[in-house]
């Protein structure tokens, strides 16, 4: 026998059954999106893992992560097929003079690793986020703490909203026109930093404002009532509580900065560069040098060299490393933010 039904419980009737197919439609749409995302992610992770990891100890392909890109040479030697990077090939030719005449197929960037790209990306992210955080947090403090609603503030907010919608390539053009040409910085870290910082500014401002808003009014009022000045209140009673939130939300901005290619294409990125960024003669040169960057490197290896089994390794490997870095940053940000939202309840 069925247990007695609650008088107000919904009994699945004809209407309920008719609804189900439509609900399933929505469900399918949702899971289709997730499946597409997963397909892209898994494809790159599975194929890229072959480059980055190895089957024997230490299990990680250290050459790929710690060396600069090289050309790959493929040739037949004593009946065997050989694959060698540029330097290795040259050494090999010196050892075996007979090899000098061997016909080798070469693929640029397909051997070696991506170390300079990783370094360049990290430098770009650190520099631009520092600038963006400094500007963004201060702007958010003004908007949330000082400003009174008025025409001016509405204008500022409008500008922020519009800035968020500007295509990244337009930021690239702007950075090129202003920093590279007008300021004469050429293709340099500094130009890239400012371009990226301006691009990510709306994200940082919005995130910071959200965190500042989450600090209860009572904190400010209590402090002011005790005779503290506005600035003392903000410094001692608002910022410390908002700062974790600001930082975690801004990590999402980091994902954006690290992931964009278009703005750095003509402001900061080099296709190839032999020296690592810290190998400069003067400290001043450090800021005025172009760097290699992961996203630009992916663009180069996926569009400028042919697709085959040899080049595929570096293509997927680079994409894998890049995707994992960005995904890691994004995941950390999303998780931290969700935890933080539940952490403080005032």
């Amino acid at each position, binding site marked *: 026998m069925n247990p007695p039904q609650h008088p107000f419980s919904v009994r699945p009737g004809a209407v309920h059954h008719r609804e189900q197919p439509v609900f399933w439609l929505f469900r399918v749409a949702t899971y289709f999106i997730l499946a597409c995302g997963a397909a892209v992610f898994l494809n790159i992770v599975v194929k890229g893992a072959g480059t980055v990891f190895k089957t024997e100890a230490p299990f990680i392909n250290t050459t790929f992560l710690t060396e600069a890109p090289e050309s790959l040479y493929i040739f037949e030697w004593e009946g065997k097929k050989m694959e060698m990077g540029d330097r290795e090939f040259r050494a090999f030719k010196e050892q075996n003079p007979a090899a000098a005449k061997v016909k080798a197929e070469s693929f640029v960037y397909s051997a070696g690793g991506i170390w300079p790209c990783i370094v360049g990306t990290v430098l770009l992210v650190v520099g631009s986020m520092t600038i963006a955080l400094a500007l963004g947090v201060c702007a958010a403090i003004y908007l949330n703490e000082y400003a009174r609603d008025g025409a001016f503030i509405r204008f500022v907010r409008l500008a922020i909203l519009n800035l968020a919608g500007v295509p990244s390539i337009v930021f690239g053009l702007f950075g090129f026109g202003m920093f590279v040409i007008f300021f004469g910085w050429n293709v340099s870290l500094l130009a890239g930093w400012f371009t990226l910082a301006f691009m990510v500014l709306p994200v940082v401002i919005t995130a910071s404002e959200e965190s500042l808003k989450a600090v209860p009014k009572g904190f400010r009022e209590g402090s002011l009532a005790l005779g503290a000045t506005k600035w003392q209140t903000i410094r001692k009673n608002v910022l410390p509580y908002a700062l974790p939130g600001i930082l975690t939300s801004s990590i999402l901005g980091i994902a954006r900065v690290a992931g964009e290619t278009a703005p750095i294409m003509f402001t900061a990125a080099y296709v190839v560069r032999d020296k690592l960024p810290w190998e400069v003669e003067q400290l001043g040169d450090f800021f005025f040098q172009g760097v290699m960057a992961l*996203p630009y490197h992916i663009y180069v290896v996926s*569009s400028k060299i042919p697709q085959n089994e040899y080049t595929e390794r570096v293509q997927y490997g680079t*994409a894998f490393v890049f995707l994992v870095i960005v995904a890691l940053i994004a995941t950390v940000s999303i998780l931290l933010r969700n935890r933080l939202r539940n952490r403080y309840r005032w």
Partner: protein
Amino acid sequence: MTPPEPAPTPPPGFVLHKKRLRFLGLTVEDCIKAFFGGNAIMSIVVLALITYFLFREGAGFFGQNRQNLEVYRQAGLEYVDYLRQQTDDHTALTRYLSDVRLRALNHYAEERKLSFEDASTALAPFDEFAGKFGDAVEPLRGLVSELSDVATAIKTKFIVNEDKKEERRQLLAENKAAEAAQVAITPVDFATELKPLLGTLPAYKDANREFAAQLTTLVSRVPALPTPDLQQRMARWQQLARDYLATFPTVERNLEQWDYRQPVPAWKSFSSFVFGRQWLTASFWQDWYGILPLFVGSLLVSLVALTLAVPLGVGAAIYVNQIASTREQKIIKPCIEFISAFPSVVLGFFGIAVLGQALRLLSQQEWLAWIPGFPYSERLNILTAGCLLALIAVPTIFTLAEDALNNVPTALKEASFALGASRLQTTLKIIVPASLSGIISAVLLGLGRVIGETMVVLLCAGNRIAIPDFGRGLAVITEPVHTMTGIIAQEMGEVVRGSIHYRALFVVGLVLFILSLLINYLAQGIVRRYRISIG
């Protein structure tokens, strides 16, 4: 009355009115406030700077383009292009004929099972006809190539002269008058230079008359073809050929009236950019900077992306917001947010490495042949780029649409339930219409995101600069295109600073910038105007 006792002076530690430190008439607090305010203004400043620098670099374009068009006219390139148009139209007709021949050959080979030789014999009259038709244009074509050389020579002369003028100007600027005087500039006298060009007009008229006579006789005597379908095609060709013949007097009139001294009006340089159908750079003949093919490319790719992304994104938002259990919500939302963090260049790479090939294979399946445009052979095209862009647009649309659904007052939902509506009815007839403005603005912002996306279209859209053939209907989405964002990314690295090409790219950037502002403005306007609020 006793005078009031003077207030006892408080001990020094309790002074209430401390003298404030002032700096330019501002207290420290004011300074701090001003500092923060300055940072807030930064966003306005950046926006203004973007506008300024895009204008600064791009503004010179229209002047240079006008000069470009002026040279085009003065050096007689325009004159030659009238003639070239005539031969090009003829080539199109020849191509039509060879298409008909191919069909006829297929018919002989497959339906009548004729060997190749027999089929060729059967087609001999047709071939003779086509050969005559093709040869008729030769004198004209010879004239065109001859005149092309003349015009190019004039243009080169002019450009060399301009370069010399620039050199002299630079020398003068450096106070090297003696050296500047040595730079020999022989001004180009267009009237004399153009004389040989214009002198060919009577010869052209004679050639043209003969050409027209030949065509007229040919068109009236088309060879017979085996099937009614082919006959019909031939009749269509006849019609086209007659139309072509009818253009001859116009060409002649154009040539007669053409005058190199006619000034190029200023709006022409603007309209040739906005409505120009060609984006042709570094060509030996004439450079064209028309944004139309790029704009159409951007638009088509975005439309495909939105057609896919809107149902998916909005559907998912409705599902997560209205139907899913809380646990499902907690999993799905971060996952979709995670998708939004995929770098676009990685998606572009995925398109090149996997998706392009996969979609092409899919298009070659027989059971899918009913879809317009299938099967296709170009791996990278609008469809590939559109699919990937959809994945970029979905998180944006989803997040914003979900917010909009969330903001619908619960009272509406409760009232609907109280009136006995089912869950589906409430969702589709109450919640979605109430949040429609938010959803539309979400779609618009998704469009903004997609139209400004660079790397995916650069890698996956095929990069062919041409307006796709809309005559094919929906099949147009299987053609490769180039986009506004893509062209900037591709060509910016290679252009000479300050050249017209360089400035043209900045103007394209300016168009993108204005477009993005417009989309933003519309999205905000819709939300503000149609927001439902319960007071």
